[in-house]
């Protein structure tokens, strides 16, 4: 076996092994088996008098072409073409993946229990009543810190850095709970909630998601590709979360069905335990799945982007055409601004996720033209809506909801306007796609900063209404 101590030969074998590993149909143990074969062959050939490198050439040649080989493996194991996520035991060294699974399970259980901790301090969750304001305001605080801990563990952060990251969460906990929001018990059987409190509840997760992102990119927010990876992660997590929620819905339905069949009412369990704990734990589990599969399965968000960009473009254009044709003005109702905010957010999302899956070097193609058309038509629709709203904003007065919605509209509008400009330059081959990607990425903290402003400033500004 002296030949195997030969360093160059070992390197050659390692290279061959690396090539083989890249084949999707050939799994880890198969590679080991084939490598064993190669080594047996090498030993036999060198014993027959060949030099090490000659033996390697002959042995590799006899093994056959890797393409043909992986095709045969794919035929013998057709299920391997459907990339398996959870059940592929050889994706990572067994030890680390098992530790990771334990960490993830521990954090998921912690998140699930965290939801129940306030019960001990007199904030009960009861199935009959609506979600108490306390949970409503603090929803993101039950899960996001644990998610940040997961990423810090996964990326190998040390404790001092982790303490820095605890700051935003601590600040969030303070601002979510010290303000004296007006929460009149009930007025005429309608539960009243302070508007600024609802705004806090909606904006806190957006602001804190940035802190999770910092943990995700291991503190190197400006390092290459980190932020875009976090964007990709966020999109995939959203999709996974929706899928898990659908599955959770099925479990809930069967819980009711089975226990009702024996005349028991599982409501006390489903409302205060299954739903909140499941919703919290699923964030951690979903994140782990996205982390585990990022190299395994094609990202879903860009696929959905491709599907829905044309549909949204057609929708917006036909809306504009219909409005111009009929001359119907936009009927400015109370919440119409929020609707248009959401529309812009969807368009920004479509642009962002199309960018996340795009090769920045590739020349402009038909889809880029379509995206530009989408952005421009979204701008046009929003401009029409904004003028309609501006004409009547004095009638409505400046409530916290409206100021927040207006601010968001402005932020998204600025993003899209500049995006349209960059896209137009790119499509006419005056600029590069990388500029557009950089712009989108650089803009990410703006959302979080605005959300933080809403959380911190709006309640005192509007007298905690």
């Amino acid at each position, binding site marked *: 076996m002296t030949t195997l101590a030969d360093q160059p030969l070992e390197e050659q074998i390692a290279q061959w092994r690396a090539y083989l590993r890249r084949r999707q149909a050939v799994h880890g143990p198969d590679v080991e088996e084939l490598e*064993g*074969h190669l080594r047996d062959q090498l030993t036999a050939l060198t014993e027959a008098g060949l030099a090490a490198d000659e033996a390697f050439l002959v042995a590799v040649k006899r093994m056959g072409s890797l393409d043909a080989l992986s095709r045969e493996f794919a035929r013998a194991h057709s299920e391997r073409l459907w990339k398996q996520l959870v059940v592929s035991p050889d994706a990572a060294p067994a030890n680390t993946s098992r530790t990771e699974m334990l960490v993830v399970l521990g954090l998921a259980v912690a998140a699930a229990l965290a939801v129940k901790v306030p019960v001990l301090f007199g904030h009960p969750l009861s199935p009959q009543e609506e979600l108490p304001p306390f949970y409503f305001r603090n929803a993101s605080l039950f899960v996001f810190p644990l998610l940040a801990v997961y990423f810090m563990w996964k990326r190998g952060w040390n404790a001092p850095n982790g303490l820095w990251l605890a700051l935003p969460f601590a600040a969030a906990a303070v601002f979510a709970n010290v303000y004296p929001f007006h929460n009149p018990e009930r007025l005429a059987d309608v539960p009243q909630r302070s508007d600024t409190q609802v705004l806090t509840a909606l904006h806190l997760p957006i602001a804190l998601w940035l802190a999770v992102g910092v943990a995700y990119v291991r503190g190197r927010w400006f390092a290459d590709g980190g932020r875009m990876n976090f964007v990709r992660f966020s999109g995939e997590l959203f999709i996974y979360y929706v899928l898990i929620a659908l599955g959770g819905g099925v479990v809930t339905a069967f819980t009711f069905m089975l226990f009702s069949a024996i005349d028991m009412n599982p409501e006390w369990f489903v409302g205060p335990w299954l739903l909140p704990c499941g919703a919290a734990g699923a964030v951690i589990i979903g994140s782990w799945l996205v982390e585990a599969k990022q190299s395994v399965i094609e990202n879903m968000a860009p696929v959905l982007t491709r599907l829905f960009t044309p549909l949204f473009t057609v929708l917006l254009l036909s809306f504009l055409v219909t409005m111009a044709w009929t001359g119907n003005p936009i009927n400015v109702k109370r919440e119409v601004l929020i609707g248009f905010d959401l529309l812009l957010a969807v368009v920004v999302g479509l642009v962002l996720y199309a960018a996340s899956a795009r090769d920045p070097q590739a020349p402009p193609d038909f889809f880029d033209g379509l995206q530009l058309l989408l952005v421009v038509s979204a701008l046009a629709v929003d401009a029409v809506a904004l003028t309609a709203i501006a004409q009547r904003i004095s009638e409505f007065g400046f409530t916290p909801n409206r100021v927040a919605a207006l601010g968001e509209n402005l932020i998204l509008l600025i993003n899209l306007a500049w995006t349209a400009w960059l896209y137009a330059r790119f499509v006419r081959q005056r600029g590069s796609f990388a500029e557009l990607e950089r712009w989108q990425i650089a803009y990410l903290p703006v959302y979080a900063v605005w959300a933080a402003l809403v959380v911190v400033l709006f309640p005192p500004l509007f007298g905690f209404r």
Partner: protein
Amino acid sequence: MDLSKDLVAASATPLVLAILAEGDSYGYAIIKRVAELSGGHLQWTDGMLYPVLHRLERQGHVAAKWAAAESGRRRKYYRITKEGRAQLAAHRQQWKAVDGTLRGIWMQACTV
């Protein structure tokens, strides 16, 4: 004389089963045994044996287990199962039928 690809592929399964029927073995040894038995006429591409073995393992005709080899590395050893032996018997019947038919017609050709 090189055997045609189809013939090599068709004979692979019975050959592997027959070799394993002689005793437990592993990939490299099976390839060596094939070369020995065929006098070098049957040239397999070495790698191609493994998909065949894995398919047989999945069908339950052979069983596999990892064990330490003399070299200290792990090696996957294959053993024929009861179903495998039944399968081998069936293959044998089929090949006999083919062989007998061809033999018959070629004998005729010789005598005519």
